[in-house]
């Protein structure tokens, strides 16, 4: 019996010493110490050995167990050290594998960024209908009947409304502002809200013009809203989009639904106001109109202009998206082209 122990010891010692991989060492360990391993079987056999040989055999087997255990541990650490020394055995310059190439549309992503910024200032989101009526697109916004501005918008009127007027003359909305009147009619001031969305105009298209595009509007109404404080809205928008403070200026501008009307310009980020081709050497970029709602607009919304003051801003999102990412053709935004959209993953 002791021969068996010796034999196993010799074989196992040689096998451990020759073992060159951790996997092989693990297999070897199992063949010795596993449930049916050769050493395990010898240990199990102790109880069946004749009493007079039991002591010697038991001591022999147990000593071998200790010895082989130590040898395995030693060989394992030697192999681990060797492997650590060798390092990885594959090409780390291969590209990483990623399952996900999904993307949000850049315009809608920016819209959501703005929604979050405004929500943090206590602004609600509101959504008006995309098909609206002349009553909300023009009549309630202080556009006089027959005013050129009504036609300058190139509104997409709906078929079947050819002879109709006001609330019965329907169109895809040419701007968002009408939604603010819907909100005023159905909410109690004071309030502050944003109402972003898609608008459509019947224009001929090129790299800078598109028939469907996105706007972002905000309105704040309270008992006192000095219009210089409308700057807060402007700064919130621009800082959200460009991620840093942007210098702005407010100047005179005319829009029927505000009184007074402002054009709000942003200092050109490309040249920091020094003048470059992007800003046509002016140093400023026209960003958005704004101003307090015209008293007639307040009236259309059911609010008394003697009590309530406010401030609007309206910004074209597509142009900002184009500036943020350096996109040179607005038509890409509605192209559904994944070669374009996947760049925003």
């Amino acid at each position, binding site marked *: 019996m002791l021969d068996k122990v010796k034999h196993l010891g010799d074989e196992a010692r040689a096998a451990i010493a020759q073992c060159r991989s951790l996997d092989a060492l693990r297999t070897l360990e199992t063949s010795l110490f596993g449930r049916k391993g050769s050493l395990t079987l010898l240990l199990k056999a102790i109880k069946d050995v004749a009493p007079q040989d039991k002591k010697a055999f038991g001591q022999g087997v147990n000593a071998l167990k200790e010895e082989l255990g130590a040898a395995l541990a030693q060989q394992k650490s030697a192999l681990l050290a060797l492997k650590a020394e060798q390092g990885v055995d594959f090409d780390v310059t291969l590209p990483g594998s990623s399952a996900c190439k*999904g993307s949000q549309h850049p315009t809608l992503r920016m819209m*959501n960024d703005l929604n979050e910024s405004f929500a943090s200032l206590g602004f609600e989101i509101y959504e008006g209908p995309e*098909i609206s009526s002349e009553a909300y697109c023009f009549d309630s916004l202080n556009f006089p009947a027959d005013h050129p501005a009504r036609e300058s918008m190139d509104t*997409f009127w709906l078929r079947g409304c*050819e002879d109709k007027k006001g609330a019965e003359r*329907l169109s895809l909305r040419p701007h968002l502002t009408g939604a603010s009147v819907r909100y005023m009619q159905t909410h109690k001031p004071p309030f502050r809200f944003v109402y972003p969305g898609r608008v459509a105009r019947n224009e001929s298209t090129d790299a800078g013009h598109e028939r469907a595009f996105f706007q972002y509007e905000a309105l704040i109404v309270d008992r006192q809203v000095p219009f210089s404080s409308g700057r807060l809205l402007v700064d919130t928008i621009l800082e959200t989009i460009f991620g840093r403070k942007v210098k702005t200026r407010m100047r005179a*501008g*005319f829009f029927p639904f505000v009184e007074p009307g402002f054009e709000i310009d942003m200092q050109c980020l490309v040249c920091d106001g020094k003048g470059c081709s992007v800003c046509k050497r002016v140093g400023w970029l026209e960003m958005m109109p704004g101003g307090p709602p015209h008293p007639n607009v307040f009236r259309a919304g059911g609010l008394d202009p003697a009590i309530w003051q406010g401030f609007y801003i309206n910004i074209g999102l597509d142009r900002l998206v184009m500036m943020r990412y350096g996109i040179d053709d607005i038509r890409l935004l509605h192209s559904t082209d*994944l070669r374009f959209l996947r760049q925003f993953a």
Partner: protein
Amino acid sequence: MKLSLQWLKEYVDLPSQITPQKLAYDITMSTVEVEAVHQLKEEFAGMVVGQVLEISPHPKADRLRIAKTLIAPGDARTVVCGGSNLTPGMFVALGLPGALVRWHGEGEPVKLEITKIRGVESFGMICASNEVGLADLFPATAESEIIDLTPLTKMGMELAPGMPLAEALGLDDVILHIDNKSLTNRPDLWGHYGMARELAAIYGCTLRPLPSQQLVAENVDLLRVAIEDPQRCSRYIGTVIDGCSVRETPFWMRRRLHLMGQRSINLLVDLTNYVMFALGQPVHVFDYERVAGKQIVVRRAKRGEYLQLLDGKKYDLLDQDLIIADGKAPVALAGVMGGEVSGVAATTRRIVFESASFEPIGIRRSATRLGLRSESSMRFEKGIDAARARLAVDLFLKLLKESDAGTKVLSCCDCFPNPPKALTVEVELEFIESRIGQKLTEADVQRRLESLGFQVSRAGKGFHLVVPTWRATGDVSIAEDIVEEVARLIGYDNLQFVPPPVQLTQAVIQPQFAIVQQTREHLSAREGLNEVLTYPWIEENFLQAAGIDPEKCVQLQSPPSHAARALQPSLIPGMLFAAERNARYFKSFGVFQVSRVFDPSAVYPVCGKSEKLPAQPRLVALAIVGESDRDTYLRAKGVVEGLLPGVKRSAAEFRALDVAPPAWAAKGSALEVCCSGKSVGALGLLSLPAAQKAGIADVAVALAELSIDTLASLPAQISNYKALPQYPMVDFELSLIFDEKVRWADIARSLIGCDPLVVGAAFLDEYRGEQVPAGKKSISLRLTLSDQKGTINSEQSAKVANSVVERLKSSYGAELRAS
């Protein structure tokens, strides 16, 4: 619109140190946008007055001559010149080396250099008028004619060799280009005098008054004026002037017209244009002899009447057109353009000068309908005050007398039936202060308003204001307008920033919008789909592919194209569009869109008074494009399964849509998607005929469309925590052979509940082929067992396995596949 700085300075003394750039900036900030500032001096850099001393023939070219020319006092050089009118002693426009010219008036400007022309060195170039952009001012009468400056010396202008050309011609001016759009509501600014008044107000400097004249009385034997439609024409001043003899317009006036981009025609026509650019009031002259019946009638055109206008074209008139008629027929389209027959000619001695006020909308309609947007109609359609018509008469008469001393005014009829009442506005100081957000003094407000022409008197806590006539045509009418006037003169940029008063409000929580963003984030970030945007309208082949009749959609009156006249009532057509576009470049991809669609069969829930808008529900749609029908379909299904929990709704349940499947779905592929027992949308594989209509070939497309509105209305689901198993779970895999007809959903149902220990049954794989008989399939599945009471031993799991196999055998005739 262009403005000449020198012209403005004739009316207002600007601060002496002000640069054109600063001027442009200030106008932009306070009034209207200056698009560009054009320094003419720069354009004429290197151009000087030269004087030709001697002329000699060119040895090698018949058409060229050599001119010995003074380029500065005492500095004569040789210049090779092909000018046909070149004569000794002549003052010429000389381009020195370095100057920019356009060869023969064409192409990009070229920089002059000292060059040899056919062997003779030429120091610069003697220029023709079209080579230096002066064709209007010095029209060439023959080929190869160069500019002859000599006549200017007879007009009292001093010329000397070496004088910069711009200075010599008075062209060292600055042109401000104003954005016309920003002038829409400011008809008072459509001329130099109006802008000069604005500058006087901005800088607090003095505005010079316009000339005023004592008018002669009306002589009805010479001319009668009648206004038949006083709504459309509130004032008509007809002046008869005799003795017109001078045809040549003074150089200074031609120069100003040239700067306005207006060609000189003859003195009378040039004067009308000059008055318009000066005051913004369009005026007109008729040849008196061609005004039949010695009368002017302002009336609506009669049906069938027509008019040959100065552009030489004939126009048919409608009764909505306002015309100027003589005793017989129309002679002008009021406010738009004069008639050809009654226009002044070289022989005209006696004229009728018209200065009138027309109602803007009518002018605009006629001009638009006839495609005749003239400088005149552009100004009238903004609304010009009636007082200005009189100012124009005074200015015209003064300038005419100066240029043509023999003229005499014979009659002046000022027909002004209903002079408008002065417009007044009351405004309190506090009203202005609260909107501007800072304290003001009454004296300051009064001073600023008076500089704009308001008559200001203090009344109670504020002001009683008389609006100047030139601002009373719709521009200024209410107290808010006064706030604007005061604020813009202070300068919006100079106002103190006042943050809105802080008040704590409830947090803004709007789940109906949050779900949209959750959907977009889930589909893009978790499922790897790309979000697309399609237009509200869509080409009809995509509608037809989706089984939608374009005639039953909301349609546009003037669509982007005839094929794209219908608006999408579902996002499936848009998804097909995106699939078709991208299948050219990609083999497999997934796209989605969240948007409103337009459903004419229902009504939008919150319409205004007497408004009936079509329903505009919010949908999310997705398309998975790939090679295999099965994989594409299952991927789409997986996305839907993931989406519902992703937006915090309960798990999706699917029901076969065998009765009314979507028209685009392949037979047997349509599933209704339900959530909390409610139908929220559908899922299916695009059928081959539908794919063909959409132009999609060789790829499989699976589509799903869900209602965001319905999902938003369902209760948000927060899944409760389940305790972890106390004892280890056991799972094992089985492969069984089934008949093709057997569906997984049925197998899964019979597995759950076949033994209390079975807590999960997962589909692993499906296999057809070798070792599986035809008409059969092998399905591999994994069962998970768990027991709350103790560890499951191998006997227990073997027993469960057996009973599962038995159950599948008896229910579906399944056979355990030998492994």
